[in-house]
């Protein structure tokens, strides 16, 4: 397709631009990550050297296992997975039926309810920090992952995305099922959900990634070190952990997200453009 530069004119500067772009993007985005992965395998003494060695003189891949044991990362992985999976499950269980009701059943006041939900999107998250924290405390949910699950369920963006998708489902299919005597729950479970796989994938990935990346809410909710998520624990350990072990911990805690991205890249990137902004 025709873009800014005409196809015929492209040849001269094209190769140069391609090479420069490849080098710059690799240097900026890939090299630092590789640098961390490799540096974690240097000894603490070698890491302090100026200028740094590029290839480790002594490879100590055991750092990763050592970091896992020293920081008890297994525990924080479990904590983080409990939060992320819980956020995902509760968000879908709560928001899918809600979006279906708003989209298909059009209840009295439905528009008003949707409006009230979307209003929360316009509230900067930071503004609600203190009152939401105090509400969580009042409910006795501090140091309890349930607080984050329920907080995640009150996600207007998810409701909005799901509702918009349900709005576009073919009426005929739903009508046919209704005439066959299907109840609303059957309709949702048997007809709507199988048709909605693409949007469910997008919403699921959003939910898990957001929960894994979140820092401020786990920081506020989990004052008990034993319950903290990886992000909260790592920043707590950072000041007094040997650098090579800390780096290994940082790499290990990022692996699930990077893996998720590599596997579901198409869904992640589709969600990005389907989501907030229309072209």
């Amino acid at each position, binding site marked *: 397709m025709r873009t800014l530069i005409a196809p015929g004119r492209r040849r001269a500067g094209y190769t140069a631009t391609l090479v420069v772009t490849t080098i710059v993007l690799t240097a900026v*985005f890939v090299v630092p990550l590789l640098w961390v992965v490799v540096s974690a395998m240097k000894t603490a003494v070698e890491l302090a050297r*100026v200028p740094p060695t590029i290839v480790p003189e002594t490879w100590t891949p055991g750092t990763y296992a050592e970091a896992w044991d020293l920081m008890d990362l297994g525990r924080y992985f479990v904590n983080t997975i409990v939060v992320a999976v819980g956020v995902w499950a509760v968000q879908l269980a709560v928001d899918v039926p809600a979006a279906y009701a708003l989209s298909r059943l059009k209840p009295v006041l439905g528009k008003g309810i949707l409006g009230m939900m979307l209003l*929360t999107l316009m509230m900067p998250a930071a503004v609600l920090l203190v009152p939401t924290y105090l509400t969580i405390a009042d409910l006795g949910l501090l140091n309890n992952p349930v607080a984050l699950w329920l*907080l995640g369920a009150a996600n207007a963006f998810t409701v909005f995305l799901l509702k918009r998708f349900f709005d576009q489902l073919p009426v005929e299919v739903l009508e046919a099922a209704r005439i066959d005597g299907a109840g609303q729950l059957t309709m949702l479970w048997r007809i709507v959900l199988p048709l909605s796989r693409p949007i469910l994938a997008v919403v699921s990935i959003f939910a898990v990634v957001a929960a894994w990346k979140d820092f401020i809410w786990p920081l506020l909710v989990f004052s008990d070190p034993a319950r903290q998520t990886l992000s909260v624990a790592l920043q707590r350990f950072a000041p007094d952990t040997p650098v090579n072990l800390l780096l290994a911990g940082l790499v290990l805690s990022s692996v699930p997200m990077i893996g998720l991205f590599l596997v579901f890249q198409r869904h*992640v990137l589709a969600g990005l453009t389907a989501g907030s902004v229309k*072209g």
Partner: protein
Amino acid sequence: MRRRVAENLAAYGFLSAALICFAVFSWYPIARGAVLGFQQVDFVSDPAWVGWENFERLFADPLFATAWRNTLLFTALALVFGFVVPFLLAVVLNELKHFKAYFRLVVYLPVMLPPVVAALIWKWMYDPGPGLLNSALRGLGLDGAAWLDSADTSMLSLVIVATWANLGTATLIYLAALQGIPGDLYEAAELDGAGVLRRLWHVTVPQTRFVLLVLLLLQIVATMQVFTEPYVMTGGGPEDSTVTVLLLLYRYAFYYNDFGTASALSLLLLLVLGAFTALYLRVTRKADA
């Protein structure tokens, strides 16, 4: 008629869990936040109405002005890097027909990292001694910088991290928008004798105006709430040069247990961000209509 009643019953059944979650974790906190700003709240005694006292305490705090100045500096610098760079990058990537998948993968990789991980990685790379940045600069024959250790460069250093970590999102959204521009517009402009820069300014920019504006507003709202980078990397220092509004809010609430003053600061933040949010609403509403 009976069907309507049944559907309404079913609908409210389906909505009930969401209504409870929104009520408890969104709507009630919004209302509560407005009241808290005018109360004295700690965990010791019952909340008491104190009028404007919390606001007066804020205005008397020398860090209050510092925090706003730092936050505005962060937002301004983040706009220079985080708004212009992804757009230009997207324009370049849109011209390239090779390695498309690689470029997309690479710019989005940091977005997948937990922000705490990105912050700690950069904190280590910023180390003026053995850190990667200064080592690379010295390798090029340049002097290194003090990065996080100097009040002059600390905020800039945080902006670089935030931009590095988030640039992928904006780039890919712009890239999608660029692909929606009809090719004949460029052809027509070229026939009219418009060079590359004029085509960029008179075709590309107007055609992506809506996306540019939306991301600009979203970015302002997001960067004014910056917290993780200063909290993890500098703790507000050196010399309070990275104390942001949110960091100050956090200190009031969770160091001093002064939830009233923290809420007063929230309300001021809401006032400022509300203007941008209202603008965002108007822009997107217009596009919907």
